[in-house]
Each structure stands twice: as C-alpha cells, then as structure tokens.
C-alpha cells in the first residue's frame, strides 16, 4: 500500500493542475463570417508560450482535426486588432485570432482548446461555430420587376397611334369631299 500513496498523490496534483478558460465568438468582424473558414479567439494571456491544441470537429461526428500552435504573447489586452505602432504617416496593427480554414460551407463545428504550459493543462469550453452556407448561382431567379409604368406607356402610346391614323383617314375623307 505504501508504494500506492505517492501515485495517488501525483494524480490528485495533476487533477488540481487542470483548469478551464472560456473562448467565445469574436466581435467586430463581418458576421456571419465566411463559408470555408472561421476565426477562433486565442487562449488567454496567462497561457502565453504554451502549446495549444485546437480541436475542430463537426457536430455530428465524434472525431475531427487538430491544429497545434504556440500561444503568442500578449501586448496589452487580448483584442482582435491591436495597434502596435502609430505615428507619422502609417500605423502598424496586429491581429490576434486563429483562422481555421478548409472547412465545409454550411456546416456546424465544435471548437475547443487544450493548452499545455509546463506541468499545467488547461482546457477551454466547447463553442459551437458555423460556416456560412453557399448556394449555387442557378438558384438566383431572374424575374422582371413588373411596374405599372410599362403598362401605362404601352397602352397610351398605342391608343395615340391608332387615333392619329383614324384622324388622318377622316382628314383625307373630309378633304376629298370638299
């Protein structure tokens, strides 16, 4: 039993070392976003330098793709667009988000992080994100916008033309009779 005690202690420590953080959709962007990609917020600043594993899977599947990257450093707040330098005639900005590409249009995905930093492992909540559905061009109807003006102008001008012809015939008849 004595040899079990250190192992149990280690497991408890590991369990205490796992923490959770929240990720959410990014605001300030064109929404709904894109058809074949979406942007995921980066892990929080205290995990800078950690190895992040982003898991993306379809909502109706159990397995998905994983993307590995190093959590970049924070410069001040963890906002999407940060102004790094501004002066003179130009501004340098920095974008802080992870773009997941090569997705399928019109599909819902579950996204979550797992970040390992030193001995600690932190996981994020699971967020549902969707890509924009993409339609075929043939679904676009090309019907005319029928307005009343078209009817009015056609009727009036046709009647006017007819009346002119009738008037000319009458004038011919009157002139001949004289």
């Amino acid at each position, binding site marked *: 039993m004595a040899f079990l005690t250190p192992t149990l202690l280690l497991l408890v420590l590991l369990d205490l070392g796992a923490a959770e953080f929240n990720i959410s959709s990014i605001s*300030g*962007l*064109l*929404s*709904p*976003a*894109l*058809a*074949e*990609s979406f*942007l995921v917020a980066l892990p929080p600043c205290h995990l800078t330098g950690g190895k992040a594993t982003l898991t993306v899977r379809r909502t109706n599947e159990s397995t998905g793709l994983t993307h590995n990257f190093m959590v970049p450093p924070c410069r001040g707040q963890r906002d*999407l*667009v940060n102004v790094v330098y501004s002066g003179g005639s130009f501004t340098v*900005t920095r*974008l802080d*988000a992870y*773009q997941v*590409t*090569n997705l399928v249009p019109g599909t819902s995905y579950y996204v979550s992080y797992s970040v390992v930093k030193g001995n600690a492992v932190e996981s994020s909540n699971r967020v549902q994100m969707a890509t*924009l*559905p*993409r*339609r*075929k*061009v043939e679904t*676009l*109807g*090309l*019907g*005319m*916008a*029928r*307005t009343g*003006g*078209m009817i009015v*102008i*056609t009727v*009036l*001008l*046709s009647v*006017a*033309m007819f*009346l*002119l*012809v009738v*008037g*000319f015939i*009458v*004038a*011919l008849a*009157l*002139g001949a009779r*004289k």
Partner: protein
Amino acid sequence: MAKGDSSVRCFQGLLIFGNVIIGMCGIALTAECIFFVSDQHSLYPLLEATDNDDIYGAAWIGIFVGICLFCLSVLGIVGIMKSSRKILLVYFILMFIVYAFEVASSITAAVQRDFFTTNLFLRQMLERYQNKSQSNNDDIWKNREVTKTWDRLMLLEKCCGVNGPSDWQKYKSAFRDVNNDADYPWPHQCCVMDTLYKPLNLDACKLGVSGYYHSKGCYELISGPMNRHAWGVAWFGFAILCWTFCVLLGTMFYWSRIEY
C-alpha cells in the same frame, strides 16, 4: 377657308408654335440620347454581357428621331405658312413614320428598365468575374470586359459585390473556382486602399475587420445611372409624343380645311 381670316391666322400661329416646340424638343431629345449613348459611367459592358442592352438601342433611335423631329417641324412650319396641301401631306406621312419609331423607343426603354434587378447583375458577376474558361470568343470577351468593369467599379466607387462582400461567400462563383477562400474571401479590390492603391491592411480586409474593407454593395451605383437613362428616354419621349399628337391632330384639321 379664307386665308385672310383672323381666326385662321390665329390657328396657323398656334400650329407654328406647336411645331417650334416639337423642333426644340427634338434637339433636346437628341442631346439627351447622345449623353446616354456616350456611357459616362462606363457601365455598358455589364449590359452587353446580359444580352439585354435594348435601352441603348432605344437611345440610338432617340438620336435620329430627335433630328427628324427638328427637320419635320421646319417642314411643317413652311407647309402651314404656305397652306400647301402637298407639303403638309408629306409632313404627315413622314411624321407618322417618326412617331412610330419614337413609340417603339419609349416602350422599349420603359420595359427594359424593369429587367435591372439585383439578381441580374449578381448572377452575371458570379458567372463572369474572373472567369477564364475558353468556351468561345464572345464569352471570353464578355468575361474580360465584365471583370474590368467590376474591378474599376469596386476600386473607384469603394464598394464590393452587388449587395456586399457576402455575395462572394454566399454563392458559388467563377471567382471562387480560381481563388483560394482563405486568401481571397472576396476580391482585394474590396479592401480599403491607401494613396498608392494598395490595401491598407490586407489581413484585416481578408478577415472582415470593420474599416478595412468596403461593406457597401455596388448595386445602387449601377442601377442609378441605368434607371435615369431608361426613364429619360422613355418618359421624355412620351411627353414629346403627347405634344406631337395634339399638333398633328390640329394640323390634320387645318389641312382638311385648305382649299384646293
């Protein structure tokens, strides 16, 4: 009808005045149609690619009708002043022909205007913009002209797509077939540009960050000039025809009362 009668003189004066107005309106119609045909906004390639450019045909007819109306009004004035049956008969016959052409032009312009829906231009943009397929020379030329027109429109007018940049995401397109979605979610002409016409921040533009791409659609900039063109040709032509109708009826009555 005694020529010296004051009421006859008055009636002649009215008819001459009517023909003067017709002459001036003819000149104005010609000038207006020349302006439309000159395509100041360079949007003709979009219409040509839809095989629906009848408003330009109507404008061309308007140019020649306007000139004819001016010439015939002079003929009409001479015929009325001389009270000549032969001159006025020629006047009537030629006026009927010109009248018929102007009726056709007005109706065509009014009807064709109703084709200019957002879906017409959206479908054309999605099918032809950056379409490099080599089906036939006509298609190659149309695709190239549509691409040039859209590039110029988006760059200079600071707009994107027909309804907005989402057009390139919501629908499949020839542009999507040749461009990677991650690098080109929409054309780079939709990005906010610096003074050297380079994107201010390409990454922000590609990601849809507000202020770095143009969110406004180009439909208003296309349909505005085309609607004004169509309305100008149709309804100004209609107004001239209404006036000419009255003058012609009056002249016919005058002609029937002229003694041989």
